[in-house]
């Protein structure tokens, strides 16, 4: 069976697109082949900056012949119907077979399709693949209309076996497939022909091209670490950079260069970021001092001077870059040491979002919220507010303007330089965290407070202007912010009721507080078309629309003062409820990954205090644990049985059986036992719930399993004696009441 080799040779393909493109080439070509009946044994795809290569081994020489039988109309059907069928089948009347069926004589067609040679199929499949290739961005060139990631220059497409090599006939927009390719752009630019994959890779290597990106990456890493090790240093690992650099070269040559002494005092992160972002250099660290002292660059060729000219050039470019960074660092330090006022002032002119005001206004809100949150988290209120005020100051710094990814980190350096305390400096760096499911969650109280306040302000703000995530669109990363709130609260074991709904008076209500602030800020900008039409105004307000009438203030004042207040509050309330349910959805995703079922979370969300996430999760974990035990699982069955019987009886009788079960009407020992068990369980559960000790409460509940089972086994609920029946139904009610006092077990599935 022949092997197939395809190479699409082009101008330089962006490094970030190469891997995916090789995979797509493999997928589209092999899928197309299989669809046409051309199976194969194995396929592999590779990429370099200038080529995508696919090797397919053990391809069928031709697709197998097929026979299809098609049932047609009855033999006595109208002529037009029969003609239509013949057209579809591509046959003539005398080629059809007439078969007797229960419906009479019916015509059958036997359509035979001969197999097709592999080259023919592959030619078609490859052309289609090239013409419809899913590049993230593609272009045209010259006078042609073909699209590729960069101009496509040649196509190599051969089938080879013991007998020889055959070029697959194919032409795409003037590019005719052949059996040749070219080597390294500078070191071996001549074209040469190849006979199969083995020959191809061997000749490429002689022409200074390493085909396999993994092999290039391994070679780079191997040489880089060895070179660093020989100088007593270590390379800072960066897998993303390694993959990118491997996609920039066909013949990697690793070179290690020096960083001029002038720049060694820069923060290591600045050195690393500048070298990586601008130059795609690896950082080389001195393990003893932790300082970054050298760099590794990867050239695409060997030279007569062993890379001396290349290295000298790279060192020079780096010096110019670092001179910039040093200039920014020194300018920034001057501002930082003088207290950072100009930076804060500048943030008054930076819009955060057209409807949510400037960064400075946002910082004011976060600072106020941080002050309120501080006691809950155990931070000092003054410190928390100060930290919130300074946490975003570095956004105005020159360094962060140049390297946005250093935000927060530079804040920490600059706040340290300003002489503020370490806790405030740390908050600047940590308040953006966590940035994702695996990012570390801050634990220092001041950092936690600012991180929470930042995220709550973001969430409530975008909810107030109705910019919620929809489907896959989440331009303001609100899902990430919600997960951030969840992880900050849970991993720091913070007890905090986020909204006001179930909140006893006098306690903190961060959602509500933040919303009130947003909505009243908003009212100042928004206007009503019609003073009488308050509800439509409120609808607009809720939808985040800006209506233009500067006379709004009066209306707002009147609303705030008296009768309209409830409606205004309703807007806030509905948004807070909606936001909380969004948070609950994110929580379900988060807990699902930890093995807690969504119905268990639903059962707990249905309980009071569901805006206290720590409490909610504690309850969910306890319930999840107990449901994993045999008693727990069976208790649910018992509960459901009790609940079903009770509900049916209540519907049938039109009465609510809710209390008054009395052991004196108990007839059997199982019934009396259940009374006793319930007494015991209630005695344990009530105080446990008071202490929010869900594990104890759930265990007490699970202990009811045996007496409930025994009760159902021995007792007929719908007894003939009405008093006994009523008593038993009331007893069932005791069971369901007790069970649902712990979690809403009606929501548990199964």
């Amino acid at each position: 069976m022949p092997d197939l080799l395809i190479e699409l040779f082009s101008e330089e393909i962006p490094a970030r697109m190469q891997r995916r493109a090789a995979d797509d080439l493999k997928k589209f070509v092999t899928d197309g082949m299989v669809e046409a009946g051309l199976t194969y044994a194995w396929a592999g795809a590779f990429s370099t900056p200038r080529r995508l290569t696919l090797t397919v081994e053990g391809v069928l020489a031709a697709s197998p012949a097929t026979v299809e039988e098609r049932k047609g109309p009855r033999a006595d059907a109208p002529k037009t119907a029969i003609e239509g069928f013949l057209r579809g089948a591509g046959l003539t009347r005398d080629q059809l077979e007439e078969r007797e069926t229960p419906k009479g004589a019916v015509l059958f067609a036997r359509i035979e399709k001969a197999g097709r040679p592999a080259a023919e199929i592959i030619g078609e499949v490859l052309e289609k693949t090239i013409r419809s290739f899913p590049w993230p961005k593609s272009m045209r060139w010259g006078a042609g209309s073909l699209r590729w990631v960069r101009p496509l220059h040649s196509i190599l497409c051969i089938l080879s076996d013991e007998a020889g090599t055959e070029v697959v006939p194919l032409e795409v927009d003037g590019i005719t497939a052949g059996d040749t390719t070219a080597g390294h752009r500078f070191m071996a630019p001549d074209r040469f022909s190849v006979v199969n994959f083995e020959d191809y890779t061997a000749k490429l290597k002689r022409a200074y091209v390493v085909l396999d990106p993994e092999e290039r990456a391994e070679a780079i890493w191997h040489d880089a670490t060895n070179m660093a090790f020989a100088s007593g240093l270590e390379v800072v690992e960066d897998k993303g950079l390694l993959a990118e650099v491997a996609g920039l070269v066909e013949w990697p040559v690793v070179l290690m260069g020096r960083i001029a002494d002038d720049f060694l005092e820069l923060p290591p992160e600045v050195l690393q970021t500048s070298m990586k972002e601008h130059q795609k250099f690896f950082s080389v660290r001195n393990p003893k001092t932790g300082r970054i002292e050298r760099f590794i660059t990867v050239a695409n060729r060997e030279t007569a001077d062993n890379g001396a000219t290349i290295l000298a050039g790279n060192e020079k470019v780096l010096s110019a870059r670092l001179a910039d960074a040093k200039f920014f660092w020194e300018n920034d330090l001057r501002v930082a040491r003088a207290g950072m006022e100009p930076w804060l002032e500048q943030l008054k002119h930076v819009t955060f979002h057209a409807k949510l005001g400037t960064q400075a206004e946002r910082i004011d809100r976060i600072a106020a919220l941080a002050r309120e949150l501080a006691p809950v988290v155990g931070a000092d209120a003054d410190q928390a507010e100060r930290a919130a005020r300074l946490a975003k100051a570095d956004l105005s710094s020159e360094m962060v303007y140049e390297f946005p990814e250093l935000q927060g980190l530079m804040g920490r350096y600059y706040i340290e330089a300003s002489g503020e305390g370490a806790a405030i400096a740390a908050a600047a760096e940590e308040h953006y965290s966590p940035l994702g499911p695996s990012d570390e969650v801050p634990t220092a109280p001041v950092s936690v407070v600012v991180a929470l306040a930042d995220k709550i302000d973001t969430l409530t703000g975008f909810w107030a202007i109705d910019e919620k995530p929809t489907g896959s669109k989440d331009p303001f990363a609100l899902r990430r912010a919600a997960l951030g709130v969840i992880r900050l609260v849970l991993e720091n074991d913070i007890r905090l009721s986020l909204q006001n709904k179930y909140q006893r008076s006098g306690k903190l209500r961060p959602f509500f507080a933040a919303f009130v602030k947003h909505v009243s800020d908003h009212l100042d900008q928004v206007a009503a078309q019609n003073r009488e039409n308050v509800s439509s105004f409120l609808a607009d307000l809720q939808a985040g629309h800006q209506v233009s009438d500067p006379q709004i203030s009066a209306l707002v004042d009147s609303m705030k003062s008296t009768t309209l207040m409830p409606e205004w509050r309703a807007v806030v309330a509905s948004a807070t409820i909606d936001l909380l349910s969004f948070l609950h959805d994110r929580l379900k995703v988060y807990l699902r990954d930890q093995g807690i079922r969504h119905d268990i979370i639903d059962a707990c969300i249905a309980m009071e205090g569901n805006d206290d996430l720590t409490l909610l999760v504690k309850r969910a974990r306890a319930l999840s644990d107990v449901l994993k035990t045999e008693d727990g699982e069976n208790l649910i069955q018992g509960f459901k049985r009790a609940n079903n019987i009770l509900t049916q009886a209540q519907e049938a009788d039109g009465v609510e059986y809710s209390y008054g079960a009395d052991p004196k009407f108990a007839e059997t020992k199982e019934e009396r036992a259940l009374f006793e068990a319930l007494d015991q369980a209630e005695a344990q559960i009530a105080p446990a719930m008071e202490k929010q000790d869900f594990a104890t409460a759930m265990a007490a509940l699970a202990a009811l399993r045996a007496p409930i089972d025994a009760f159902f086994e021995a007792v007929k609920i719908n007894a003939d004696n009405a008093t006994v029946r009523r008593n038993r139904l009331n007893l069932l009610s005791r069971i369901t009441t007790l069970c649902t006092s712990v979690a809403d077990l009606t929501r548990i599935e199964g």
Partner: protein
Amino acid sequence: MSQTSDAPKSFQEIILRLQTYWAAKGCAILQPYDMEVGAGTFHPATTLRSLGTQAWAAAYVQPSRRPTDGRYGENPNRLQHYYQYQVLIKPSPPDLQELYLGSLAAIGIDMGLHDIRFVEDDWESPTLGAWGLGWEVWCDGMEVSQFTYFQQVGGHDCHPVSGELTYGLERLAMYVLGVDHVMDMPFNDPSPRRGADGKEVSPIALSYGDVFKQTEEEYARWNFDTADTDVLLRQFNEAEAHCREILEAPQDDPKTGKRIIMVHPAYDQCIKASHMFNLLDARGVISVTERQAYIGRVRALAKLCADAFVQTEAGGWQPDSAA
């Protein structure tokens, strides 16, 4: 850069070699456009000529102005006035990369010793409503050129596609000449020449600083602190209005009876508006939100000019296609 006997000795020699090289490759060597522009792309020989179906090949030096980059001539490589070398060939030839590499060899970069790389960099000009795909070209880690296949200009798809090369001349020359500060770069060749009598004559050696240090200071002060923003703003608005008026004029010239669409005069006003915007930006009077609006206004003019250009003969319009 290691010096070889073939190495150029001055800034101007590098420019001359590029001119000679691209002339030999068939480009028309044009002169700079006589207006203030932010980049060589603004020259109508690029912006307008990349539109329509007519073939085109041109190369030129274009003085470019970026008021916000002014550093009073003190920064080693930032200037508010600098030179770009620009090549535009339509349709882009299949060997454009090789032609480009040949130009590097022509200015003394030895391909055997240096590491030349094509690193993804997609070009976009929001003010011109233009974008393309290509690379920045690295020589030993330094960006020496921008290489772009134009896909769209002034909102029009490019058919055929132009290949555009832009060299930042000062940076490239500093690298080739081994100079660390732009102001120290020899503008002309400082080495002695033989006079008519066979004796050595010292030339009047001029550095880049001799030519431009003072102007960098003057413009930096003016750009940042003293340019009259009311005047600039008025000129922006006038240029914008004028551009539209010119294009709204009837196509048929009553005096000559000819069909004359005044694209280039209108485009001059677009260039002027763009430069006024850059100056206003350097004066710090444009807020972040306003910025987008200004850019959008210039883009609208560029688009109108592009629409008009494809209605001219240079833009591929033919009398018989009028129907």
